């Protein structure tokens, strides 16, 4: 065996900086979750679909040559990709991409106008649910004891009443409109969120960092807002994503029952409802809004699932 002499090694001194350096860039929890989310192909595709849906709803009615209320009596119920020869569009080569409806209105601009209404209702009510639910759940969970018991009993009673019945009753009292649907849905939609946040807060408040904050004299409002809620955020974001499809469904359902947005406004629900009336002859009038509703609900659901996996890899199956 060859002898390796000491002289063949060179002592280059300590490099404290390098020794203590972190070899990989540090990631916050959110960055880490986003990285995992982007790796998930299905969730990514769903996210792209949703972004496209939102962009189309915002942009399409602006660039479409037809107004969503404009009627073309010359070609009612036109099939898809009909070249328009009516009014000012004659000779301009304007195309009804999705055809026209029974009153000769351009389906393409109607679908995206409907998208604006449906998506606004869904997203705004999800945000309201978020605030109400987080506030109620946070207070109930943090204070515990009698407050918790009373608040949870109230919640349990409201929860026992089927929500669509409450929404229908509310829709009848309030004047019809987009705001009404949002109010009616939000009044009952926050309950699952409140339960979720309460559960999280109850588990979190026993941890040391909360005791530390209390020992330092932080007020309950500060503890809830600064310490407890940020820690529940990942679960809450997933819940918001999953509550949006249920808001879209409720809007569509209400439109079908006849309590949706008032005319001349349209939503995906009211378009589907109108489509159902004559889909036996013109199936595309039902198919297009149906695909929009289903695709959006599906994309939000899958994105929500993907986010849950990203935020909590242990849950993954």
């Amino acid at each position: 065996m060859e002898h390796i002499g000491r002289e063949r090694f060179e002592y280059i001194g300590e490099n404290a900086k390098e020794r203590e350096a972190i070899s990989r860039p540090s990631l916050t929890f959110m960055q880490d979750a986003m990285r995992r989310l982007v790796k998930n192909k299905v969730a990514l595709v769903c996210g792209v679909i949703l972004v496209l849906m939102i962009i189309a709803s915002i942009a399409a009615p602006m660039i479409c040559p037809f107004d969503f209320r404009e009627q073309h009596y010359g070609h009612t119920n036109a099939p898809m990709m009909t070249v328009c020869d009516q009014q000012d569009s004659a000779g301009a080569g304007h195309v009804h991409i999705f055809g026209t409806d029974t009153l000769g209105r351009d389906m393409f601009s109607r679908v995206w106008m409907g998208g604006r209404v449906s998506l606004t209702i869904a997203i705004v009510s999800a945000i309201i649910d978020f605030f109400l639910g987080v506030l109620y759940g946070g207070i109930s969970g943090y204070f515990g004891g009698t407050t918790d018991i009373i608040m949870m009993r109230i919640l349990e009673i409201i929860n026992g009443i089927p929500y669509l019945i409450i929404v229908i009753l509310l829709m009848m009292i309030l004047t019809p409109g987009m705001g009404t649907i949002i109010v009616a849905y939000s009044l009952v939609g926050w309950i699952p969120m409140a339960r979720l946040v309460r559960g999280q807060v109850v588990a979190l408040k026993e941890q040391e960092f909360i005791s530390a904050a209390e020992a330092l004299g932080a007020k309950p409002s500060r503890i809830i807002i600064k310490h407890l809620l940020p820690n529940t955020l990942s679960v809450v974001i997933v819940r918001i994503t999953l509550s949006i499809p249920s808001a879209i469904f409720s809007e569509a359902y209400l439109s079908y029952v006849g309590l949706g947005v008032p005319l001349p406004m349209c939503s995906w629900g009211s378009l589907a409802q109108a489509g159902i009336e004559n889909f036996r002859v013109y199936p595309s009038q039902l198919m297009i809004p149906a695909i929009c509703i289903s695709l959006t609900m599906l994309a939000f659901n899958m994105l929500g699932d993907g986010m849950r996996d990203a935020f909590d890899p242990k849950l993954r199956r």
Partner: protein
Amino acid sequence: MLKYTLKRLGYAVLTLLVLITLTFFMMRMLPGDPFLGDKTVTGAALENMKAKYGLDKPVIVQYFIYLGNCVRGDLGTSITYNKDVMDIISEAFLVSADLGIRALIFAVIAGILLGMVAAVKRGSAWDSLSMFIAMIGVSVPSFIMGALFQYFLGLQLRKLLGFALFPIQGWGDFSKTILPSFALGLGSLATVSRLMRTSMLDVLNQDYIKTAKAKGLSQTKIIIRHTVRNAIMPVLTILGPTVASVLTGTFVIESIFNIPGLGKYFVMSIKDLDYTMISGTTVFYGALLILCTLVVDLLYGFIDPRVKLEG
């Protein structure tokens, strides 16, 4: 067990009371009144009519009268049909219940079976199928599903076969019940099958399944004796909400398939501003759903003894 039962019962009664109160006051706050469009009824005749329906008394008195009547099962007289609301409900509800029960049986049995197969043969074509059905079920609203069924399985299939395999309208024969029950049950089937799959996978990973395998039990016996019994618990908990979603789904499915059930009356009474009919149906549906949830809760406490300890 007694304490748990009483507690659940107390909640159910309270919830029902809140529902009745809400319904009553919301009905009073509605714009318009039932005699508004009727120009022939004026003066003394109008007063008589109001007295007949009890609309002349103070609201709070009306409320307590209403509450008392609800307890006795008297939901008033429908203003548009001039018939006892309870009579209309008991007549029309049979049809709705028939449809709902068919949909529920379909959703629960098919959902459990699909979830079981998907979990046992994880990654197989069955698993993909259950995934696909679950995706469709959560993303397509039941009324759109109904219309699509009518178009593809009703009209297009008739063109293809030359005769109608699935009639798309009306109620009565067995063949007429197939499409509406499928359309109504599909959403719940999706939920049930996903939940069943997850909880089966959970149970299959437990140590006692390994023990059962090690002592030489056959696969069938392991699944039937050890897995399904434990895996079915979470599915039972969602039966309450499932009943609720199926029942509210009947409103739209009935009008699409032209089925003379209670849902159709409900939607029509909303348009007619028929106070008593709306409140009657609401209270009836609410009570029914609260009862279903109560039964499911009690059943759950009965089957899974751990629940009682928390009660």
